């Protein structure tokens, strides 16, 4: 009898365990499989009920195609998601420059053609304050939906996905610019000796300040240091107008013009506007000095870069033609693609350098720091999905976005450069900072040293003590465009740094006045965590 009871209990235990730890293996369009637990997938999938049968949802995304950045993963997992939920997913690709106007037109006119959007985080101010997108907190607690881990996001990235304490989008991309450099070349003893002879000091690898980086970039510019028979460059940037060129300036300028402090006040931790009256700070002495520096730095790169967008600048670095670039996480993972890159295993990465001289607006002069003023950044779109308030199927949209935010799909995306999804969550990072496995990265084509440098750089960036403020107020896109076009005037010699930034300030004043200074000020203060005393 006891034996029978034991067998019975054992069978029951095995059954219970199999229920609790049931697994499901899903295969994407590329034929790669991931095994999920039932808990990760949520009960809508595991029950097999298909409550979204007959529902079609339409999602907009930057144009990129089935293997393009941000758009690619939607295609990769579309078939399997459709099969599991019964819903149909319609992917609408829109060129980057047209995406925001198209989305806003749909929302503002109440057309409701789209159920969700893969947005840039700088659109959030407009979308949230206009109540054009819906919060997702209620869905996040609901076991019916796929489970993802909001606690894994650093505060710097979490801020971009939320407004106040309210969540608006599940995890997808984490954008920030870090420094990429040619570790093999910078550590070459002959080159180091020649540099010391010319500049009178030994450089750090990676450089600690922008001025040090400039010296190195100048030293390596214009001669054949990689022995390919052609002269090479010190740095490469993408500076084309209308192609995200202004983001370089935003990341580079932060240490020249943001005074760190305990809290956000009139003079500390602010970059864009004076938080008391919305006056633009973009033409402050610190900003002007930063742009003058960038113009000088650009001369140590290829002339054509003022007309280059992301792909062209990245390819130049991947082909081993430049010592430095500073850009998004895509570069680190694209370096691993040997069909495109000649520098796999030769890449170094770090948080962006700092500046020893910082403009202190409270004193009206530059002050000198003993250690570099370093700022992490979340520059870029951190492209992620949100649900349109006009959607008739918000649950289906959330289900799709949450499915893509599950740890396993998110990590899969991060480990492939073409997805455009960059690391930011703790489970993307290696121990002791995160929970990902180096073997896993290596199995997915990463050089182990590259992976360690790359992930450490992003960890340092997103978890830095100082994170440059992010602009996400109504009209955000218009402010960015004004900055972009006038910076391009400076890059192409049509205006000096001061003239260009004065024009930006003038345009920003116009935009603020049109949107309403008081309303803008209120949203701006909220968005940067400024509290009036």
């Amino acid at each position: 009898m006891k034996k029978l009871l034991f067998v019975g209990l054992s069978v029951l235990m095995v059954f219970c365990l199999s229920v609790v730890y049931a697994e499901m293996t899903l295969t994407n369009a590329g034929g790669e499989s991931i095994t999920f637990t039932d808990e990760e997938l949520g009960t809508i999938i595991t029950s097999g009920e298909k409550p979204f049968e007959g529902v079609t949802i339409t999602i907009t995304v930057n144009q990129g195609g089935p293997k393009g950045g941000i758009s690619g993963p939607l295609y990769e997992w579309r078939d399997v998601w459709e099969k599991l939920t019964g819903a149909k997913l319609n992917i609408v690709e829109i060129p980057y420059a047209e995406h925001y106007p198209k989305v806003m037109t749909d929302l503002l006119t109440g057309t409701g053609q789209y159920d969700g959007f893969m947005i840039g985080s700088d659109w959030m101010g407009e979308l949230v304050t206009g109540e054009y997108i819906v919060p997702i907190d209620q869905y996040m607690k609901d076991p019916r939906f796929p489970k993802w881990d909001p606690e894994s996001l650093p505060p710097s990235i979490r801020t971009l996905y939320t407004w106040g304490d309210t969540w608006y989008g599940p995890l997808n991309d984490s954008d920030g610019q870090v420094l990429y450099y040619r570790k093999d070349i910078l550590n070459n003893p002959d080159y180091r000796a020649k540099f010391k002879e010319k500049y009178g000091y030994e450089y750090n690898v990676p450089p600690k300040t922008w001025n040090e980086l400039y010296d190195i970039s100048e030293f390596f510019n214009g001669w054949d240091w990689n022995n390919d028979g052609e002269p090479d460059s010190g740095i490469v940037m993408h500076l084309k107008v209308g192609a995200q060129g202004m983001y370089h300036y935003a990341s580079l300028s932060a240490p020249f013009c943001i005074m760190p402090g305990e809290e956000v006040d009139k003079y500390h931790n602010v970059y864009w506007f004076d938080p008391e009256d919305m006056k633009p700070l973009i033409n402050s002495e610190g900003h002007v000095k930063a742009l003058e520096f960038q113009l000088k730095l650009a001369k140590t790169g290829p002339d054509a870069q003022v007309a280059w967008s992301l792909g062209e600048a990245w390819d130049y670095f991947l082909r081993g033609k430049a010592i430095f670039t500073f850009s998004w996480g895509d570069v680190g993972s694209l370096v691993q693609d040997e069909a495109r890159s000649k520098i796999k295993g030769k890449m170094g990465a770090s948080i962006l350098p700092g500046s020893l001289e910082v403009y202190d607006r409270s004193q009206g002069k530059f002050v000198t720091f003993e250690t570099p003023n370093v700022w992490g950044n979340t520059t870029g779109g951190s492209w992620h999905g949100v649900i349109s308030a006009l959607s008739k199927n918000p649950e289906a949209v959330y289900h799709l976005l949450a499915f893509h935010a599950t740890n396993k799909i998110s990590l899969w995306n991060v480990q492939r450069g073409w997805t455009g999804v960059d690391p930011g969550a703790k489970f993307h990072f290696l121990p002791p900072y995160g929970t990902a496995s180096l073997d896993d990265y290596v199995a997915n084509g990463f050089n182990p040293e590259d992976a360690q440098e790359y992930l450490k750089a992003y960890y340092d960036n997103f978890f830095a003590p100082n994170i440059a403020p992010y602009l996400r107020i109504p009209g955000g896109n218009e402010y960015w465009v004004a900055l972009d076009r006038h910076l391009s005037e400076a890059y192409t010699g049509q205006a000096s740094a001061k003239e260009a930034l004065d024009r930006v300030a003038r345009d920003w004043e116009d935009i603020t006045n049109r949107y309403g200074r008081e309303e803008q000020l209120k949203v701006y203060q909220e968005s940067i965590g400024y509290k009036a005393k």
Partner: protein
Amino acid sequence: MGLKSGRIKYPFILPSMIWVLAFTIFPLIYSFGLSFFRVRLGRPATFVGLNNFARIFSDYKLGNSLRVTLMYVAVTVSIQLALGILIALLFHQEMKGKSIFRALLILPIFCTPVAVGYLGLTIFYEEGGPLNSILMSLFGWKIPWLSSPFWAWVAVLLLDIWQWTPFCFLVILAGLQSLPEEIYDAAYIDSSSEWEIFRKITFPMVQPVVVIVLLLRLIESFKIFDVIYSLTGGGPGTATEVYSLYTYRTGLKFFDFGYASALGYVLLAMVMVVVNLFFRRVRQVYE
């Protein structure tokens, strides 16, 4: 019978009337109304009278767009017209394979301007693009086609001239071919030189056609948008930001519809002034 045949025309005219009313007249009237309001979708419109028009005079960015547009119109239209006349005169002669060359020459007209812009991106690509590769192999130097404000402007001009010169050529050639032979026979009997014949007979007779071509190209050039949008996006900086591109950005990127409508009306007024001046001059010549 007469009455019936008179009535039968209405069903045929109706679709085009609806089309014109819906897509030309209504937007024209609607946007005129908009130009007196501060309009941002999602917020109530506010009547601002002539403020949007007044704002045009204080908009420093507009000055650049106007300058770029006027230079663009002046250069492209004059070159297209000059080349069009020259090629038409060439094709007015007897030559072998004329029909093949003519067919090849008019192909660019059928290209979509946006596609021409993207084609330009490839042709003018600075690092290893076909044009710079040829220049490098022949002369050892290359041109910063898209990174220099001047050369970006030249690149845009070249594309537009390439696309629209065939139109000028085709229409002017048709004009030349309709000229009566007898006058030329008489002129040759008087043993006039080729240049004299062109100056005193051919050009004056073909001039009405040339004026029409000029007017059509002027109107179209003022509205230039597609090629620049796809090739340079108005850059580098604002070097190729023409008036239409600026208006497009104001209205459809920043949703400042009232001001964009005012900008549209100012462009309409400018084109109408130019067209009227030309027509007045044409009338003076021919009356």
